[in-house]
Each structure stands twice: as structure tokens, then as C-alpha cells.
């Protein structure tokens, strides 16, 4: 599938911002199942300084700085991305979850390169606590000996079933424990909670930020519904599932991730990959507008 994606972010500040640093994750990273063919970022006002780099997780980051007072910040990205179909996987072939836990835990020997890499995503991170309550919440999804892929799918279904998609009720600072308590949130909260449930058991899970094609999606349970989260930037979860490596789940829509998703960046949680994050001097209150348009260039 080929997509043209248009992503616009605008901040209107109530008073002048005197100085600002921002960090952007807006360029789709290279991955085996996708290819970014074309990409532009335009920023208004003019940046005082800008640098593009690759971060510790392999994502493309852009750092910018503004030195002139401004009341509006506008970031527009345009890209063309090719998403390839992913190889078919068989749940029964994946490791039982306890065996995977044991394999990832240190046991005095050299870890495999893949396992060591997965270990980066096994622990508490700034936005994802590791707590017994998450282990308990997801217990039914992890019966003894069940392959990890089946566990992850069960967990995704559970979250989709028990959490209400409620835009505007949570913020970037809402703790995962509160999401668990209130059972409401947006894709970021669904993903953080899923990650917390996996890591609390010693499994490895990543947070992926990206885009989702609008229109009908086929859920893991084969029902069809309208995609949730297509008009904005989206987030989902990758679960380390040897022998296949990282498999992706979208708990907000209850779907396996395929050609309908375009990944931009991944990390331990939202904080590592948020599309646009900045620290400003001045500005007072602000109003934020985000719009995402994913246009399919492949005739269906």
C-alpha cells in the first residue's frame, strides 16, 4: 500500500513565546515493512537552529529552536510511504510466555542480540510504571504455557472490551494507574496500559507512534468497524514474540497491525517518541490544533 500523509500541528499562544526548544518525531523511521519515499517538514516561524539526528532507538529526530518572539507555531509534514504486507505468523510457534520471561531475565550467560535489544523495553520507563496491579489485571490473559502471541492478543481484546475510548478525558500526564482505575482514555492510554501489563510480567513491549488509515478495519475477532484514531497521530504496541521478533497490536482498534498502519517512531513510551514536544519561555496558555490526513495512493 502506498500513502500520502499530511500532518499539521499548530500552537496558538495567548502571549508571546520568547524562546523555545522543540523536539520532533515526524519522519517515518526505516523498518523492514515500510519505506518512506519522500518527506518534507516545514516550520513557521523560521527556526533559529535546526538539526536532524537518529536517536538511541533508531528514530529520526529533528531538534529546532526559536529565538524570535512568536505567538503561533505551525509544523506541517508531508510524506509518501510504502507499507508492505507482513509475513504470516502462527501463534502456536511463538514461545510460551513464561519461557520468554525466563529467557529475557539475566542468567549469567551471553544473551542473543535480539533478546538483549528487547531488554531495553522490559522495564519501568517514565510513563509506564511496573506494578503488581497490572499483573493482576491481565492475569486471565496469561494462563500457564500459553504462547506469547495468544497472550498478547487476549490482552489486546480485553483492553478493547473493557476500556472506553474517551477523547479529551485524559492528558499526556495521566498516569497509567489512573487509566486502569477509570478504564477510559485514548490510543496513548490504551497502549501504555497494555505495555504496563506486559512489562509487569517481565515481557518486552514497545510504544509505537504513527498513523492509521481511515476507513473500515477488520478486528482480530474478524468484525469490521470504523478505524479509531485516524484523524490524529496514532499509537500502538509492539510485543517481543520470538521467533518472529516484534509483533504489533493496536489495542484501540483491536487489530493486528498491517498495511493500514504507518510507524513513525518507537521507544519505551510516549515520552521517547511524542510527535512534537517543546519547552517554551513565555506563551501563557495555548490552543493546539492537530490534523492528520492519510490518503491511499493504491487503488483498492
Amino acid at each position: 500500500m502506498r500513502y500520502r500523509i499530511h500532518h499539521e500541528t499548530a500552537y496558538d499562544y495567548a502571549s508571546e513565546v520568547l524562546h523555545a526548544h522543540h523536539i520532533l518525531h515526524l519522519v517515518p523511521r526505516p523498518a523492514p515493512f515500510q519505506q518512506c519515499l519522500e518527506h518534507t517538514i516545514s516550520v513557521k516561524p523560521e527556526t533559529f537552529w535546526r538539526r536532524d539526528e537518529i536517536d538511541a532507538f533508531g528514530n529520526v529526530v529533528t531538534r529546532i529552536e526559536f529565538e524570535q518572539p512568536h505567538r503561533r507555531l505551525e509544523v506541517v509534514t508531508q510524506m509518501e510511504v510504502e507499507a508492505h504486507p507482513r509475513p504470516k505468523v502462527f501463534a502456536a510457534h511463538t514461545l510460551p510466555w513464561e519461557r520468554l520471561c525466563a529467557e529475557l531475565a539475566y542468567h549469567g550467560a551471553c544473551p542473543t542480540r535480539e533478546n538483549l535489544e528487547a531488554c531495553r523495553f522490559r522495564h519501568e520507563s517514565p510513563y509506564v510504571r511496573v506494578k503488581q496491579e497490572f499483573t493482576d489485571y491481565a492475569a486471565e490473559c496469561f494462563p500457564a504455557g500459553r504462547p506469547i502471541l495468544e497472550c498478547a492478543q487476549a490482552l489486546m481484546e480485553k483492553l478493547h472490551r473493557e476500556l472506553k475510548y474517551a477523547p479529551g478525558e485524559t492528558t499526556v500526564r495521566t498516569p497509567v494507574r489512573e487509566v486502569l482505575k477509570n478504564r477510559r482514555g485514548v490510543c496513548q492510554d490504551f497502549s501504555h496500559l497494555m505495555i504496563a501489563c506486559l512489562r509487569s510480567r517481565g515481557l518486552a513491549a514497545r510504544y509505537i507512534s504513527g498513523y492509521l488509515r481511515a476507513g473500515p478495519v477488520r478486528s482480530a475477532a474478524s468484525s469490521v468497524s470504523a478505524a479509531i484514531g485516524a484523524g490524529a497521530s496514532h499509537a500502538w504496541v509492539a510485543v517481543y514474540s520470538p521467533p518472529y521478533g516484534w509483533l504489533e497490536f493496536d489495542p484501540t482498534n483491536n487489530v493486528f497491525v498491517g498495511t493500514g498502519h504507518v510507524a513513525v517512531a518507537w521507544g519505551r513510551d510516549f515520552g521517547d517518541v511524542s510527535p512534537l514536544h517543546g519547552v517554551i519561555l513565555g506563551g501563557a496558555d495555548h490552543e493546539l490544533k492537530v490534523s492528520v490526513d492519510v490518503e491511499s495512493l493504491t487503488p483498492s
Partner: protein
Amino acid sequence: MIDKRVLLTGARSDASLATYDPDTRRYDELLDGDGCVRPHWLGLLQRLTADKTHDTARRALEVTRRLIVENGVAYNVYADPQGADRPWALDPLPLVISQEEWRGIEKGVIQRARVLEALLADLYGPQRLLAEGLVPPELPFGHPNFLWPCHGLVPQGASWLHVYAADLARAPDGRWWLLADRTQAPSGAGYALENRDIVEQVLPEAIRDLGVRRVREFFGEMRESLRSVCDDSANPLVVILTPGPFNETYFEHAYMARQLGLPLVEGQDLTVRNETVYLKTLGGLQRVHTIVRRLDDDFCDPVELRSDSALGVPGLISAIRAGKVVVTNALGTGVLESAAWLGFLPGIAERLIDEPLQIPSVATWWCGEKPALDYVLANLGRLVIKPAYPNQHFEPVFGRDIDAEAQAALTRRLSKRPYAYVAQEHVALSQAPVWRSTGTPNFAARAFTIRVYAIATAAGFRVLPGGLARVASDAATDVVSTQRGGGSKDIWVLSDGADKSAAPPARRLQVAIRPDDVPSRMVENLFWLGRYTVRCADNARLLRSTVRVRVDKDVWRHGVRICRALGVIAKNAQPAASARNDPDPFGIARDIKRIAWCASQVRSRLSARYWRAVVGLQRQVQEATASREEPREALERLALSLAALSGYAAEDMTHDDGWRLLRIGRRLERLQFIASLLAQHLTAPAATRQGQVEWLLDVCHSISIYRSRYFVAPRLGSALDLLVRDEHHPVALAFHCNSIGRDLGELAASLRITREKSVAEPIPEFTDGELLTLEGEDQEGYAARQALAVKLRALHISGADLSDRLSMRHFSHTGDTRSVWT
């Protein structure tokens, strides 16, 4: 046994030693297994025990207490006597360590610093130790201070640790064991220096005669090495970054800043522009080359690390990445502050520097490995369980102290998330004598640990010959913690005469703080310190003068009305209440709090006696609030203390731009006060009466000068002459106006900027004839007074306007930053 002890010290009747009753299960620093005084303690002991009346000990304890109070040494500094400001506890009896023994400690600490440095280089670089299975990935990756944005970032000179500290304890077998590594921003070196300063005054002869190694030079070396880490400037600007006055070790930050001659800054004093760090100073942005941080790793840059940190410097990591600033210790070094590393370090040392580790650590099991967990669960009763990560909210648990139920709960907890826990063998700490501070000052035995410091220099790591001994609070206690009320000791490392560091290093003549390096925020606080000090003094005098005339009904009514009109007391309040009532927003207590706040913000610029006076002021207010004494006395004393503050400001502070703004603040405040006081007085019905004029002169501290000059009973005309237009009288409006003008001129010349326009409104002028008119009881006199009052009010307003203009011009970039997200 006692006999031998007595024989060796030659002090048969010495009670201090006879009553010393060490716990035989511990190693004793003073006495050996046979109860004989160890040779390296003899010299000190002979000096101390020669005096049989305990005078030495009594005097030592007393002087120590006094010096701690005078120097304001505290574990937390914010000058609120009811707050967390706790005086530092120092036992003046030092811990003596022989030269030979110290060499072993020194070597071991240097080696350890090298190992940790190599470990950091690997963790933030190729991560070979992880790939080889020598280090569990759980250790770095689960630790909140492993900073992914710093991965791949090599600090200048590949030096991660500029200062390293090791906490050591001596086990019953006499060996030193490592308890913990301090790699992030080791604290306590400043307290060690302060301890030495005090003990030097308490036991000056002993310290000289015994050849105790000096510690002060170490701080000179520290400064030199800080100045040399950044290699792209001949005169680099090095700053100390502190979380601010609410931090528990802020005293030390300010103390170190003064000792090292470096500006003490907070995150908001710094800004990153184009990958370069600048200090916001009065004169504009000054490039910063090196930052000594006392701020935790993850708080340092809200753009790339914790975004909820208001303490950090946005963009700092990009400046480090660009090589334009050196931050010491490097960001991310906190990852090594976990007991979980201890068991793996021998293997790491072998692998990285190919040497066996010299200082053993306390036996430690990281529960993340199955066999270790099994062992720990089977031996819970004799182990201490600790968290592996600092953000765990889990206090160490002594297995022997908990019942079966709690043990079961602990076992469950450990089994659920084993990698987050560490178990350590319980070590019986060694003990040293302290002077009992109550009753007869005998020796008592207390458990202790020592903190030893190493700094990176061009010639490798160097160890401070001394350090900080931390002492348990009572004989039974085995946990040593400053937060839990333990004490401290100076460490005396004896030299065999060939103390290399005793020769002061060749000093280059240099100005430590460049005059233009004063942070804007600090100057803003100096400005307000000046204003609040004068405001308090003026209000105290106004109230005092009013309380004083209580017997004269008319004058009293006049005074009270003006106190209310000036907002010094509430509309329905009496003057006496202001000094007492703490929550009263008009009260003096409020303004004293503001003084304390501003002073704590600029503490590194204040002299010790200035600070003491600020602390004293707070105490005075508290006492005045609590007691029922005559308010006039309290106000009198307050006014006196505030005058002392002004004196110290003039005499103790460098007369630089910061000080100029402090003085402008003072002058502006007084100018505004006198202008509105006079305006109020002039419009009052009894403005011309002798009693009221005398009251006015008393408020203005001008009675005696008036008498010596005019030889007449107080009259309004002469009073106005004195208070308005006398350029040489330091209360008069003309005096203040001139002084402000001069300071603005000097400020402009010093900063090479255009001169800020002074107070816009002119000082009212009048002829002698007009002065007579102003005294008139007729309509003409009344009108003249009203007209003058209008001019004075305008003068007051233009004073406020100048204050705003100065704020806009010099302090406008000191605001708070905030985070935005999508």
C-alpha cells in the same frame, strides 16, 4: 585490660578513657583487641587527656556549637527557623587514620573510580559487558538514571566522573569494606571542609603538632581541574548548578560556590542558544563552559529528559552533544548508584582494567538471578533487603527485625519482581570515640562510616586526604544517616612528615568570579533584598515612633491614621499588632519572611554575619510574636538589626553591579516611603503642630540632626527643608535621587549600556518664603501643603515606574519555562 590502657596513655586518673566502653563485637578504632590504645591515636589522646578537669572537652564542645551556629552550617538552609533548617551536628573529636592505612584506602578508591569510569564508558557506548553476559541488562535498563538520550555521547576527555565518593565501613575483621558508590553529584565534601575549618579552631595545637594532612588544597585542585576540563577557552566560565534553596544540601552548594569562587546558578539562570549554554547576567548572556551539577541526572534537561522538571536547562543535552559545554559529573552517571552493581564489580574490574578489585564490598546478592534469590529467601533473617532502583519507594528492611508474617510478605514481594531487590549481609560497623555532649564530656563509642572523595585531574584521580565521617546517633544504632539525625566528624589523616600536599600549589593570580558573571535572577533578588530590608526598617520605625507617642492622644491619632493610610497596618488594626501577628499581610513578620527568602536566594553572595543577622531577625520576630513584651522594645531591636544588615551590605559585599542594584533598591524604597509619608503628613489636619512634626522627624530618624541644625522646636517648614531638599542628609529625598542617578550612571558605564533614565518626577523645590507659607494655618498654607502633597505623590509613582523599568530591562528573561506536547 584497663591497666594497660592507663599505662599506655600515662593518664591514670583520666576518666574519659576509663569510662570508654566499646562494644566488643565491633572493631574499635581507638583500642586494640587487648584494650590498648592504638599507636596512631596516642598523640591526640595525650594532648586531650593531660587536662583532668575536662576543660578541653567542654571548651571544644562549646566552641564547636558556637561556630556551627555562627557559620550557619545547616543540613538544609532555608532560613526559616520553623522549617527544615537543622543545624549541622559535628563531634569535634576527629577520627584518626594512620598514613599507612590511608594509603590503602587511597589506592582502593582510585582504582574503583577507574573501574566505574570504564563501566560508564561501556554502558553509554558499545555495551560490551551486556553482550558478554557480565552485567545483567536489568541493572542499567531498569535504572531511572540510565539516560537513553545520553547513549553514544562521550563527554569531553572521556571523563564521566569528575568527583567520585565512596562510602566505606570497617568490618570486625579490621578491613575496610565498600558500602556504596556516589557517582552522580556526591555531596558532603563541602561539609568536610567546613568541619575541618571548625576543628582547626577547636584543636589548633593538636592539628599542627600531629602533622595532620591538609584538605583545603584539594579544593584548589578541584577548581583548577574544573577550569581545565573545558579546553576551548583561556578563561572559562564554570558554574555550579543547584536545584535551589529547598534542596537539603543547599548549604553545601552555596558553601562550595564560595570556596571555589564559582557562581551558584539555578536552571532558569541558564539558557541554551544554538547549542551553546549561556548565563543570563545583568550585562547580557555570558557563555558557560563548564557546569558542576548538583542536580539529579534526569532533571537536567526538560526537553530530552523529565519534562516535568522546572529545575533543569532546556536544550542542555544538545549543547553537550555539540561539545560546547562540559557537565560534571556527566549526565547519566547516577545509573551506578545502586547496590545491585556491587556483586558484579569484581568481574567488571577484571574485564575492564584487568585488575582484582582492592576494596571488597559488603556481601551483596542481586535477586534477579535465581540462585541468588533462593539463597536470599533462605537467609532472610540475617540479611538487609534494599531496593535495586532509587525510585522504588522501598525502605531497607532488616530481616532480623520483622516477624514471620512480614517475612512472608517480603518473600512474596521479592518473588514477584526479584530483579528490583538486593540483599546485603549485615555489617557490624566499627566504632570510634565521640565526646558525650551532655554531663561530663566522657568518651562514648559510636558506629560510623566514612565518605572518601576522589577528583579527576590531568594526572589521574586524586583522593582528598580526609573526608566526612558520619556517626550513628546512639550507641545501639547501626544505621548512619544525616537525614536521621546522626552526626559527623572530621577525619585526620596523619602524615609521616612528607606531606606533599602541605606545600601550597603554585597559584596563578586570577579573578574567580568575573564581575559580569552575576546571574540576573540573583541581581533581581539583591534588588528586592535591598527594597524589603528598607521597607521593614521604615515600617518598624514608623510603628515604633507611633507606639512611643501613645500618651499624646492627638499625635497618636495622627500617627495611627498615617500607619493605616500607608498600608503598614490594616484599616482597623493597632500598631502594636503588626509586630506580633504573623499571618497579618501587613505585618512586619511577612516582610521579614520576604527578606529571608531573597537572602536565601543570594546566599552565596552574602557574608557569614549577614546571613547570621537574617537568621537572627527571624528569631526576633518569632520571639516578639510569642512574648507579651512591650512592642516598642521589639520594634526597636528589629530596627537595630535591620540597620546592621544595611551596614554589612555596605561593608562586606563587593561593590559590583549586583551591589549597585541592591543599593538602588534601597534608595528607591526609601524615596518612595519618605515621599508618601510626607504626602500623608501634609494632608493631615494637624500637619503643622509641633508634636506631629516631632513625630514625623522621629519616624525619619532625624530628631537629633534637626536639633543640631535649627535650634528651634520642631516646625514643619524646617522639617521639610531637612527631609526634602538636603542633599547631604541620608533620609532626604534629594539625597536619594542623587544617589540613584549616580548608581544608574555607574551601572551603565560598567555594563557598557545606555543609562536608564532616573526618577522622572523632580524633587520639589521651594524658597524659604514658601517654606514659611507651608507652615501657615490659613487657607494659603493649607493649599500650599495640598499642592506639595500632589507633587510628592507623583514622585512616589515615578519611583515605582523606575522600579518597573529596571525589572523589564534587567530581569525580564528570568521567567519560568513550561512544557508543551502533542
